[in-house]
């Protein structure tokens, strides 16, 4: 480990006390019981060189720009289907495709205002995109507050290392919300409530951006305009909703009728162009694990550029050639269920018994559209500190891209690591921890 990090790692306990002081937690449900726990923080940061960052920044901006164009196209002209770049089955069979969004015009043509792109670095130094998260990507608040705290606890570390500032994430969000706001209304962050796993993040981002943290029932729609309701029935017009409620629960009049988390008739206000929804509805069609395969093709199709970032080598059983390859090489591949998220529905062929392999093959044969297969990438492990010893663990990087009038990449990101030495799964819901991500200035 770099000796310039000694002071910070020596003060790990102090950092943890500060994290507790600020209530930096995430919630999980176990056996239907809600529990909050601290998100384990490792003080050894992921360090990204200036050169690597310039490459990532360029690639991320390019990728998100193409994904936004794809979303516009899918809900309008559908040229990419007509030109046979993406098969229509992958669009219309996707759980994330929402026919209700056909023809809706989000301001500036932006659908994915906040994109969380998950990447890994291979041992050969090559970065690969593992997943695009374009609905409600979470996690930015953790490196934000970790940086705030580590700078307090070990100022020398930051005096000795030229690290790009990351506390401007709230400014990026604020600017984007200002760009997107309609009708001089206020900006709100709509949370499902304190028992949501990411509630800390919702409330922290509201504080840092100056947006109002709104709870279900506090927003109403009258004459296709959204209002935040106050005491004595005072109303503030809402121009922009950064909603942390899933698409299907957002408007009980259109989607899940039993939802108590949404805003009745918000879809009408959105369709009328009277409020911005951040992120837009219907984005799930673009971050579907099946659609992921086509993202490099989208870059070429919409931008006429070579994709800067690579996907992990991926196979779709939908294509005959890939189907044969997957069935022949299943033991060496990682198989993902496209309808699952959060690290669920991911299996490594090498970990399965003969019977389980047979079962999985049958599932692939019967529902080829439901699965993708990827080569197992030999991740570069990152050092973490455990019981005073440095050990290596699998880790990924979630980079955040914010799109308003411009598309900007946040110079940081959430690095999640697996605490289990045998596991590649880094999700916090499955026991993973997090690190700060340092982008070096020189």
């Amino acid at each position, binding site marked *: 480990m770099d000796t310039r990090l000694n002071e910070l790692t020596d003060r790990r306990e102090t950092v943890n006390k500060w994290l507790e*002081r600020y209530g930096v937690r995430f919630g999980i449900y176990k056996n239907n019981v809600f529990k909050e726990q601290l998100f384990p923080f490792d003080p050894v940061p992921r360090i990204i060189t200036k050169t690597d960052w310039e490459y990532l920044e360029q690639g991320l901006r390019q990728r998100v720009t193409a994904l936004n164009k794809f979303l516009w196209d899918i809900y309008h002209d559908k040229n990419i289907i007509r030109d046979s770049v993406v098969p229509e089955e992958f669009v219309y069979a996707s759980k994330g495709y929402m026919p209700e969004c056909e023809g809706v015009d989000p301001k500036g043509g932006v659908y994915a205002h906040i994109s969380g792109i998950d990447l890994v670095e291979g041992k050969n130094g090559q970065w690969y995109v593992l997943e695009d998260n374009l609905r409600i990507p979470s996690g930015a608040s953790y490196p934000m507050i970790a940086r705030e705290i580590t700078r307090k606890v070990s100022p020398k570390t930051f005096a000795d290392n030229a690290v790009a500032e990351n506390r401007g994430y709230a400014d990026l969000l604020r600017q984007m919300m200002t760009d997107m706001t309609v009708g001089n209304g206020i900006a709100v962050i709509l949370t499902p409530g304190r028992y949501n796993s990411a509630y800390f993040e919702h409330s922290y981002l509201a504080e840092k951006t100056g947006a109002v*943290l709104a709870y279900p029932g506090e927003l109403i729609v009258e004459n296709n305009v959204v209002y935040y309701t106050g*005491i004595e029935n005072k109303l503030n017009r809402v121009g922009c909703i950064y909603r942390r409620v899933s698409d299907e629960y957002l408007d009980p009049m259109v989607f899940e009728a039993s939802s108590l988390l949404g805003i009745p008739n918000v879809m009408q206000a959105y369709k009328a162009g009277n409020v911005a929804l951040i992120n837009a509805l219907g984005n799930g069609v673009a971050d579907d694990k099946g659609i992921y395969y086509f993202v490099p093709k989208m870059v070429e199709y919409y931008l006429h550029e070579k994709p800067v970032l690579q996907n992990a080598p991926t196979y779709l059983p939908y294509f005959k050639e890939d189907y044969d390859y997957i069935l022949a090489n299943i033991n060496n591949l990682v198989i993902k269920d496209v309808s699952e998220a959060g690290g669920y529905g991911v299996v490594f062929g090498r970990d399965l018994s003969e019977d389980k392999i047979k079962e999985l093959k049958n599932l692939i044969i019967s529902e080829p559209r439901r699965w993708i297969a990827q080569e197992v990438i030999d991740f570069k492990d990152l050092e973490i500190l455990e019981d005073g010893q440095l050990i290596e663990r699998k880790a990924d990087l979630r980079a955040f891209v914010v799109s308003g009038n411009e598309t900007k990449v946040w110079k940081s990101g959430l690095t999640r690591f697996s605490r289990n030495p045998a596991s590649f799964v880094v999700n916090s819901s499955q026991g993973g921890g997090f690190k700060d991500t340092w982008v070096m200035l020189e």
Partner: protein
Amino acid sequence: MVKSTIISTAKANSLYWLGRYEERVYMTLHLFRKCYDRMIDGNPDDYSHFRNNLDTKGKYSGNGEFVFGMLYDEDNESSVISAQNKAMDNAILLRDLIMSETLSYLEMSVSRLRHCRESQEANVTCLQPVIDWSLAFWGSAEQRLRNHTALNIMMTGRNIENLDIQIRFGYSFERVRLAFDSLTRYNDQETNIFDGNTAAIIDSLIVKDKFNLNDISYKNELLTRVNKLTLF
């Protein structure tokens, strides 16, 4: 970005109860320290006065159990830890208004109470930081809460709780009158959260020639009115 000028009913409710519960933490500890001091070398039943005034539901046999129960028993609604948990439950919904710095004093108090409970710490001095952080919480809230309506609602909760406890513990006329006058400062035109009739009745009750907290029916009426002063 355009800022909201209003606060929702649910947040107003949380602000009010945050004010009440946090003041309850402070006042309970303050009064408990006096009771604790008397019990050091006094009558074994010296805590009963304190217990009766708080209507505590906890059934404790003897000083030791009482001390531990009043501080750390989460099943006892009058315990310090219960009030602190409830203050936190309300505050956690208000981070965007009161800010993380303010909230952090409550996080630390909850953590301290749990730590002292786990280490079976019966000496009330171990909870001095909870008193310090309570005062720091109020200072930070006044400094950071830019929305005056929100601040007024929270301070109303705080002052109603203070008045309630003073009445329960038989404070003097001067102290109770002063507490009521302090409370009315927070009912400005804009906030308008008091019930006017109730405020007038309380005003007429806390006068020198009527004031008598030894009269149970007078005391109960005053407490009932105070607790109906706002709509929260």
